[in-house]
């Protein structure tokens, strides 16, 4: 990321067509989320009892649900929720995990306390941790982000901690230090710039897992309020009608799979371009 433009930025993808497809799918999702009112053929909230549970047809490509709402329009609007949750969880995990990891590695005493606290948090299986937080905070979109983000705070801070420890031992960091560079300078000039690429990898994986986590919370009725269009909510509602209206199950689920799979493809491609010493932090394979 040294300003040689988009060619360098796209390098991990041009070499691998399947990762390029993943990137395109993600771009399509972002476009769908941003321009949902223009792209959706119908109002996602409009009820029409006359056409309830109609199979996919020329007017309603994805069919309609039990209230006669257009499934395609709801699926397009749901991209907004997916993007919001993903971006929210990634921001939460980064905003907490990066300072915890970097400071722990640079100040061993503080690190001893902070990393033990992270260990304690890791003793809670992630979904159980999320559910416990939802009980305390109450179900809502913002609280879903915090509840899912808490689980990735731990993995992110551990990865950043390990990476910073390695960077700290690098000759150029030691040289800067022995020349009298202060810690804030070290962090902003030597540590953070080197963390950008691994953070990008971590962000794509966390974004993917956030989709699955949010879908689970919505499905259990403990996430976004049921009237908000989200793929998880659509699947939760479709449950009662799976034999009568299987298309209600198919389309929202496919959207989740497409999004999460594309993110994993992109994350994989980015990881394989990482410095080999960093790659093993992500369980990279040959």
């Amino acid at each position, binding site marked *: 990321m040294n300003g040689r433009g988009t060619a360098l930025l796209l390098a991990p993808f041009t070499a691998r067509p*399947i990762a390029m497809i993943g990137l395109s799918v993600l771009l399509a999702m972002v476009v769908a989320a941003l321009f949902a009112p223009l792209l959706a053929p119908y109002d996602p909230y409009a009820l029409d009892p006359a056409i309830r549970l109609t199979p996919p047809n020329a007017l309603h490509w994805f069919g309609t649900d039990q209230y006669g709402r257009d499934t395609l329009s709801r699926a397009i609007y749901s991209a907004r929720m997916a993007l919001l949750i993903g971006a929210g969880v990634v921001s939460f995990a980064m905003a907490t995990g990066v300072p915890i990891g970097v400071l722990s590695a640079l100040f061993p005493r503080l690190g001893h306390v902070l990393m*033990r*606290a992270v*260990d*304690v948090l890791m*003793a*809670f*299986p*992630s*979904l*159980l941790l999320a*559910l*416990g937080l*939802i*009980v*305390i905070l*109450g179900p809502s979109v913002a609280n879903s982000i915090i509840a899912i983000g808490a689980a990735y705070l731990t993995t992110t801070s551990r990865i950043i901690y390990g990476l910073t420890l390695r960077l700290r031992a690098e000759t150029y960091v030691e040289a800067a230090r022995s020349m009298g560079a202060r810690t804030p300078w070290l962090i902003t000039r030597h540590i953070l710039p080197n963390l950008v690429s691994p953070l990008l990898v971590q962000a794509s994986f966390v974004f*993917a897992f956030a989709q*699955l986590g949010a*879908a*689970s919370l919505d*499905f*259990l*009725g*403990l996430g976004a309020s049921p009237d908000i269009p989200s793929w*998880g909510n659509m*699947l939760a509602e*479709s*449950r009662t009608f*799976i*034999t009568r209206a*299987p298309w209600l*199950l198919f389309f929202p*689920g496919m959207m*989740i*799979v497409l999004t*999460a*799979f594309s*993110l*994993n*493809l992109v994350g*994989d491609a980015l990881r394989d371009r990482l410095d080999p010493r960093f790659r093993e932090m992500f*369980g990279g*394979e*040959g």
Partner: protein
Amino acid sequence: MWSYALKRGGATAVTLVAASVVIFAFIHLVPGDPIYILLGDTATPDQIDALRRQLGLDQPIIVQYLRWAGHALSGDLGRSIFFQAPVLSVIADGVETSTLLASMTMIWVLLIGVPIGTIAAMRHGSWLDQCLSGAAMLMASVPTFWVGLYLILVFAAWLGWLPSSGYPSIFEGGIANLRYLILPSLTLAAPNAALILRLTRASMLDVSREDYVRTARAKGIRPWQVVRRHILRNALLTIVSAFGFTFAALLSEAVVTETVFALPGIGRLVVQSILRRDYPVIQGVILVVVVLYLAINLVVDLSYRLLDPRVELQ
């Protein structure tokens, strides 16, 4: 080894104590007066006074914690508001379902993940490897409940081969009742088999780059012998340790699967208790699962070092 085991066990104990403080705090962090949370809205003033004295809520918070921890150590996790029964016995009712579900899941994970991962590693770089690795990544990107609902649609609703929900105990209906767990265990196995597949492939590739593998090949040992005796045997160590972690993770992943299939396990108990505001049960389940989770991790870690003499004991 013993000094390492003691040290590692001590660290786990410290983590457990810290985690128990967090779990204790849970009841106090839930909005509302803990007394009403523990007794429900229908409590009489007499009951409220009695419980307040019994829990010592007038005492300093540290005394309250020690009292709670002491009770938990002796198996008293409080009373369920909904069932009006001890939390431990409510949890115990779900143990059979959850244990059998987790065990069946692990069998699928083993049967699918290890052989396919081995094949992918042996054909490293081929189109077959790329297809299998891609399929594994796809499986890891699918929400478990979606797989579950599709299995219900196809095998229960359309074909009518397997039951779609519930689980009557095998102690009452015989071993045939295990068929109730086939679809749920497959659902839960999908993402975890994908994980083990990727791990098997990666660790076999790692081992196959070792010098002793090259030596074995150079000596003229047959290729499948090298794979079986030199590569797989060494790679299995990593895989076995991953099995422990996967089993521990299942404890929490089962929440969604048990809800989809209406299984009377611990996972569904959590979701129902959240909807019923039965906070003592939620607290009890979290405590039990965290203890199990830490114990499994400890055992895995120690056995890993016991099995592989090369691992440095620090």
